[in-house]
């Protein structure tokens, strides 16, 4: 399936700049520094089914 170039670029930026980490590691704020408009973060306050907040 075709994925837009801007989206792939945002993924590349996040990966190469080390802005995301393994989701296996605790305390990661996966989107805190991603610098593009596409990369604005979406809050999921209930993202953790167990503790209600990651």
């Amino acid at each position, binding site marked *: 399936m075709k*994925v837009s170039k801007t*989206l792939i670029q945002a993924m590349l930026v996040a990966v190469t700049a080390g802005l995301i980490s393994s989701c*296996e590691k605790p305390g990661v704020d996966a989107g805190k520094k991603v610098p593009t408009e596409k990369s604005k973060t979406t809050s999921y306050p209930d993202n953790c089914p167990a503790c209600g907040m990651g």
Partner: protein
Amino acid sequence: MGKIFSSISCNLDENILSAAIPLFESEQVEAIEWSFDTLFKVRNIPGWFVELLTAFGNENRLIGHGVYFSLFSGSWSKDQQDWLGHLKKVSAEFRFDQISEHFGFMTGENFHYGAPLPIPFTFTTLSIGRDRLQRIYQACQCPVGLENLAFSYSLDEVKKHGEFLDQLVAPVNGFIILDLHNIYCQVHNFNIDFNELIRLYPLHRVREIHVSGGSWEDSQIIPGKRIRRDTHDDSVPEEVFHLLRQTIPMCPHLKYVVLEQLSNGLNTSNSRNLFQQDFKKMGSIVKDYDGQQSMLSQHRFHPATNPVTGHPMADRLLQAQQSILSNILESANGYEHAQQLLRTSILSNTDWEIEKWEPYMLETAIAIAQKWKNGFD
């Protein structure tokens, strides 16, 4: 058989995404599978990841794969209720084509710790499993399925697994994820012929196939015995690709073939290259069969009516048995110690049939439970 999508397991993880980006760039990824309940330690999901999920969802090519629900826990917990609430919310946010979970109960006391292990195939476990699958359907309102488990304690259990899966998903008209590496584990660990084993599965219910790698572990109690484990941390063995070629024509309603690998197996450029090569090989096999059969799949995998559920089912005895088994597996000093503890526990002479467990598989259960008792930390 309609269109079959060559897919990857894709989570918010640097190693996985690094391996996957070249495949996205070359437009080879036809669908993605997201473990929607694994971001519990992440405060915010980056916009680009939301965009990725949305893009595939809008094309009906996003599938969800849960990890932590613990379908067969004897107790019903607030964590499970919250998990359903979370599923309902992400299902409203993203368009999933289907949702699946793993077979078994999680050994850990903490909701996000532990590993799934098998349960006895009884009326009680069947009823609990059906009840919970109906709740998952109510939350997501799309086809619901279960993945076959790699681990079994005995050959008898291996042979009954497929039929039990069929009975479990029948009320929700659900589907099966056939993990071929899990089958590969069973074939090796119990010395059973693949053709004999595969026919014991409800292949008409297979909507998804997983392929992945794993690892070998030498038994410490049976010299020369090697156990195959579904550690998902290595490239796909050629034998599993061979099983894929054999299995696809047997599954008339197959829609997704997913390459799965965990982050810890994708931390070098070489391992990422191997992942990309595996994907291309998998995609090539899928294309060989895709569209060969003229009959399009008409199976919708939705129940005829929306299931009505009352209070969640639970069973105190099952809960107590699972708690004791988890404690034994997580704390035993080895196989003999675990055997001794099991023989004097409430699990003795019950439907768990601990007396029939293969020693090397009990040994493996101890290794699995102790590996995951602290989660991913």
